[in-house]
């Protein structure tokens, strides 16, 4: 089928566009305007505008694609919610070795506090054996000449403790 036959009337109508002309004399000044802008160095300004920081170029994408702005905002919100939910979780993973390390360091030192530490550190000491092989922090090396068995620590009967005088700063 000939496209001209199908759209003959439309093409005639589109011919109307060819009759739309800019104001008289418009093209007389056009090249002069462009050349004077070149002489003023405006094309160099355009050059530097293209070298704008990545952040501004990133923001410009939002102007061109508003949907992208929505997606980006949603992703940020999800990330925020995930962060809040994660922060409210009980310290099970990251803080556990630190807590255990603190407990190990204080156990031989604070004799009276062993009973106070016992409830909190009891579950920790149970999982210590498993973690002992992978976490070198949990090994007792260097600080004490008497090696203390892990299962005797923190509230376990027979744990070796040593009395230490401790006065908080400012109460001397």
């Amino acid at each position, binding site marked *: 089928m000939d496209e001209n036959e199908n759209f003959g009337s439309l093409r005639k109508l589109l011919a109307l566009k060819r009759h739309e002309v*800019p104001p008289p004399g*418009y093209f007389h000044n056009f090249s002069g305007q462009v050349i004077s802008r070149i002489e003023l160095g405006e094309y*160099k300004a355009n050059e530097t505008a293209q070298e704008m920081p990545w952040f501004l170029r990133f923001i410009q994408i939002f102007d061109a694609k508003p949907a992208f702005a929505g997606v980006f905002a949603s992703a940020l919100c999800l990330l925020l919610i995930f962060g809040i939910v994660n922060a409210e979780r009980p310290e099970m993973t990251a803080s556990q070795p630190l807590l255990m390390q603190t407990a190990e360091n204080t156990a031989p030192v604070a004799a009276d506090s062993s009973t106070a530490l016992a409830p909190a550190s009891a579950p920790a000491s149970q999982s210590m054996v498993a973690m002992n092989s992978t976490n070198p922090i949990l090994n007792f090396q260097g600080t004490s000449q008497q090696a203390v068995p892990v299962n005797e620590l923190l509230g376990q009967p027979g744990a070796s403790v040593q009395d230490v005088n401790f006065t908080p700063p400012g109460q001397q």
Partner: protein
Amino acid sequence: MIMAEPIERRESTAPAPEEESALVARARGGELLAYDELIKRYQERIYATIYHMTSNHEDANDLAQESFLKAYQALKSFKGGSSFYTWLYRIAVNKTINFLKQRKNRQHLSLNDLDFNTEHDPDLVALISDKTPRRDAGLTELQQKLNEALLKLSEPHRLVVVLHDVQGLSHEEIAKVADCNIGTVRSRLFYARQQLQAMLTDYLK
């Protein structure tokens, strides 16, 4: 006939137009006179393409100037793989499409006047007086409706219609300018015409 004679004489005595490649080479060397000549050669076609894409004279003026500035800035990177004209067209078209994407949903018409010959264009006279059921529809109203319909097309479809049916470029040239294959040009043209026909059905019966 009387009006045509001096023009013919002037054309015969005028120096032969300089080769485009020579002008480009001189412009690359920083000769603004050569670039001025290049602008004068293509300003009307570049302006018209942008104007038909935006339906706004002020935007077309800004974008046409920006396109020539950009082309001058990028002249050193022009390898000559395609013609300067096609390369320039591509710059103008890309600038226009980027602009249209940014100002989406903020379109307003600022239409140019129709020239004196419009009323004598046989196609248009026939279209208005014989086929259009709304015979009282003036050319200005028709112009308005046509531009509104064009703006409803997506940019790639509008571009193909403008370049082919208004500017008269071939499918091959459009494929180079739009950086796509000829089959895509043809399918876009067909779809765009279908859309326009549906939108302008009252004016085409």
